[in-house]
């Protein structure tokens, strides 16, 4: 077994800054539904989860990578130590932090649950997928299941006795979920016989729990084609009466990363004996129900991206402070100049600050979304207009969180390897694993192309475009209030230009929709998703910088806080001056919309 050493690192100061100084979670604490929660408790929970991540899951990250999973006698064996970590995780209760008390949870604010998830995912992405997907599946049953289903399935899935999966993908139904051919035949007693093949199923089998509850998208005989004809089924590996349920793992994939997570091919009903129950009582609701899980999981993937990128940054930072190479550029004429740590070189500092600003930006974006969820929970059933506002912002931000954070995660990891130099390419250091692990984030839970089309095709125009208008209006208001801030003038001016660029591009998409130029939309959607993400993050980081500037001006800070706030200020300035301006260029490219990729003939790409 590879030596179990923890490499996971983060700085919890940023978490309490975002929660309590920037997004003011305390506004909703101490009252229903968060009556048991205050600032100190949130911070304590995060620090204890971090302890857990460093001591339990973190040391198993490389172990899982090198050992991977094995399929023996039709059963998946997970890497050494995973079983023990699973037990400890559920004993500690971290996985059900945000779950309702009736299921053993603590009704934690979503934002605290989300940031805890960052700590768990960052310490061991592959391991955390097993309990992560299980929780998502349990929440679907808790929301849409019958009372009997809730009673039977949810508690054991929440307390770690059983695992859970989401089964959408099939050999011919990847991005195009609607092509699924898995069939469900009513037996007559309310249950269905399921038959079909699902591929790429994360945690499709494992040895961590007594049973696994699969949520399977399938088509009831005679239902219409496409996504509308799909229904969602609860298909246990072992039936509740203890008999096996004709679900076979026929193989597991050998992958680039997340090797500790078993990616399975599942055969349902090979012997015609696979029994499933419909989630709830109404047929053909599968996509709507699965969307609940998909939204949860999409945010979860964004968190994975943030989590891995953050640890890649902190590891690169540590290495850059330690590794001595070359002399200071200020001594360029002096051959005898002392060797310096590479963090002294301006280009290395630039790479570090770029990573820092992106990581903090992603965390701010995710925390903003999560605090919208908490504010929504606080007014649910009391203030419909407020609920609609928060829900609208959550819907709009979800594709940004999924796609921007997953794309940037890989890039941050790549930069981290570059900062290390040759050492970064070696298995002796953690960053090469981070790069391999993070590549999947832009693919699963809907590729980033699909996310971008969700953004421009559905989200921008949702509610007659109201959510987008409100969102852009809030940024405009912020700019108006801060355009004369002495520290930030150039930065705010950049944000203003980016704001205009994004607004213009929204109109451009509208024009393409109206004139039916659909290929243009598909060509430019991902670029636009990144533009909007950069605008949002530029705004959130600058907003954080104004808070930091005020603290610095007030003075009386500990050395640690002094450094922290200075860091916040420079993250924002770097992002606003180096990354936000890209939005302006992107808008020009978008408007010009070069259609070469559509015009070029298939043959011209190269010989077959």
């Amino acid at each position, binding site marked *: 077994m590879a030596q179990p050493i923890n490499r996971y690192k983060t700085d919890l100061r940023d978490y309490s800054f975002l929660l309590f100084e920037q997004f003011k979670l305390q506004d909703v604490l101490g009252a229903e539904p968060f009556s*048991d929660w*205050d600032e*100190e*408790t949130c911070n*304590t*929970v995060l620090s*204890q989860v971090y*302890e*857990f991540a460093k*001591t*339990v899951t973190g*040391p198993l990250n490389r172990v899982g990578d090198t050992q991977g999973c094995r399929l023996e006698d039709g059963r998946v064996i997970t890497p050494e130590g995973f079983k*023990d970590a699973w037990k*400890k995780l559920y*004993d*500690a*209760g*971290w996985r*059900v*932090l945000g779950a309702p008390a009736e299921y053993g949870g*603590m009704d934690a604010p979503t934002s605290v649950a989300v940031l805890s998830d960052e700590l768990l995912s960052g310490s061991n992405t592959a391991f955390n997928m097993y309990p992560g997907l299980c929780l998502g599946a349990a929440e679907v049953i808790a929301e849409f299941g019958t009372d009997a289903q809730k009673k039977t399935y949810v508690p054991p899935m929440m307390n770690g006795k059983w695992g859970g999966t989401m089964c959408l993908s099939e050999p011919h139904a990847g991005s195009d979920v609607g092509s699924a051919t898995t069939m469900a035949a009513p037996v007559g007693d309310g249950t269905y016989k399921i038959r079909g093949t699902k591929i790429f199923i994360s945690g499709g089998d494992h040895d961590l729990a007594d049973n696994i509850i699969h949520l399977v998208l399938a088509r009831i005989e005679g239902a219409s084609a496409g996504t509308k004809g799909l229904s969602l089924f609860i298909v246990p590996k072992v039936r509740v009466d203890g008999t096996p349920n004709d679900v076979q793992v026929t193989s597991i994939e050998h992958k680039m990363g997340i090797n500790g997570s078993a990616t399975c091919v599942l055969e349902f009903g090979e012997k015609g004996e696979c029994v499933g129950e419909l989630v709830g009582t109404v047929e053909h609701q599968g996509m709507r129900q699965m969307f609940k899980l998909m939204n949860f999981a999409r945010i979860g993937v964004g968190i994975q991206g943030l989590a891995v990128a953050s640890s890649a940054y902190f590891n690169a930072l540590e290495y850059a402070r330690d590794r001595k190479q070359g002399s200071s550029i200020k001594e360029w004429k002096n051959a005898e100049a002392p060797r310096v740590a590479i963090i002294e070189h301006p280009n290395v500092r630039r790479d570090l600050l770029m990573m820092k600003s992106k990581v903090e930006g992603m965390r701010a974006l995710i925390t903003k979304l999560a605090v919208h969820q908490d504010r929504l929970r606080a007014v649910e059933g009391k203030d419909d207009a407020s609920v609609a506002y928060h829900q609208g912002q959550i819907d709009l931000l979800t594709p940004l969180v999924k796609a921007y954070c997953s794309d940037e995660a890989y890039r941050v990891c790549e930069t981290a390897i570059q900062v290390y130099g040759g050492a970064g390419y070696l298995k002796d250091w953690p960053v090469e694993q981070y790069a391999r692990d993070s590549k999947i984030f832009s693919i699963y839970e809907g590729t980033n192309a699909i996310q971008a089309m969700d953004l421009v095709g559905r989200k921008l125009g949702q509610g007659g475009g109201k959510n987008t208008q409100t969102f852009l209006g809030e940024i405009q208001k912020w700019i108006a209030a801060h355009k004369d801030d002495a520290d930030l003038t150039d930065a705010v001016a950049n944000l203003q230009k980016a704001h205009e660029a994004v607004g213009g591009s929204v109109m451009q998409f509208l024009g393409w929709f109206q004139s039916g130029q659909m290929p243009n939309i598909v060509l430019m959607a991902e670029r636009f998703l990144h533009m909007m993400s950069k605008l949002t993050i530029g705004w959130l980081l600058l907003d954080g910088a104004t808070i930091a500037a005020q603290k610095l001006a007030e003075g009386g800070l*500990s*050395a*640690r806080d002094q*450094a922290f706030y200075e860091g916040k200020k420079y993250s924002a300035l770097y992002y606003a001056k180096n990354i936000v301006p890209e939005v302006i260029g992107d808008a020009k490219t978008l408007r010009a919309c070069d259609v070469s990729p559509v015009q070029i003939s298939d043959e011209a790409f190269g010989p077959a």
Partner: protein
Amino acid sequence: MKVLVPIKRVADPANANKVKVAGSEVSHDGLEWVMNPFDEWSLEAALRLTEDASAKTRTGEIVVVSIGPKAAVDTLREAMGKGAERGVLVDGEDTALDSNVVAQILAKVVEKEQPDLVLMGKQSADGDSNIAGTKLAELLGWPVINYASHIETSDDGKTLTIKRELDVGVQTLKVQGPAVITCSDRILKPGTIKNGVTPADFEYPDLGDLNSRLSNLKNIMAARKKPLDELGLGDLGVEPVRVDEYVGFELPAGRSGQAQFLESVDELVQKLQSEAKVL
């Protein structure tokens, strides 16, 4: 059984490189605070003494006490999050304390709380003085046993059988409570504590690099509602006298940080003899 566990917060030993000294004082600016690891061992021992580990129930009471500024409350809550029932914070400045002051204050807390046992760290990770426990026992007129590696209670909980691992072998002692006991890290191994409640075949998990168990969500939430008394020295009726006077601090000389890889064990032995002259 009621156990008093004194707990000190210390600057995180992992950040020792950030410590600054100014004349006769160590600056605490910018340091992160953690529970003194040696106190964590005692806390873990106290938890094992006062629970039924297999039924996951508490059978006794632990009072954690800390002397320090208001912020030391976090350390007490952390200990309560691991399972301790109550907390007592005695107001004090980190820099105004020495082992003598600490022992005098703790003696008053013991008088007030009347525990069956005081379990404390053998030393603190910052001062490394190794005195407070012995001094406290002296003030109380109680027996003291340092560096306990095993603790077993009699059926009535009054008599304790304690093992100490010494260079010359293992010493076994029987002591009639109340007593002051300090622990060695051996106490964290499975099977070192027998309290007559936890089944003898119960296996505590290996703590690995941890100095005490991790807290869980339920305990953290519960800890918020556990009682925590804040006392001033006046409340305890004590005016402690400091006997140590710190005249200066210096940071250790930086290490060269050079590592050399040798080809063989023989070469290592030779270097240890001829260059390092330690063999």
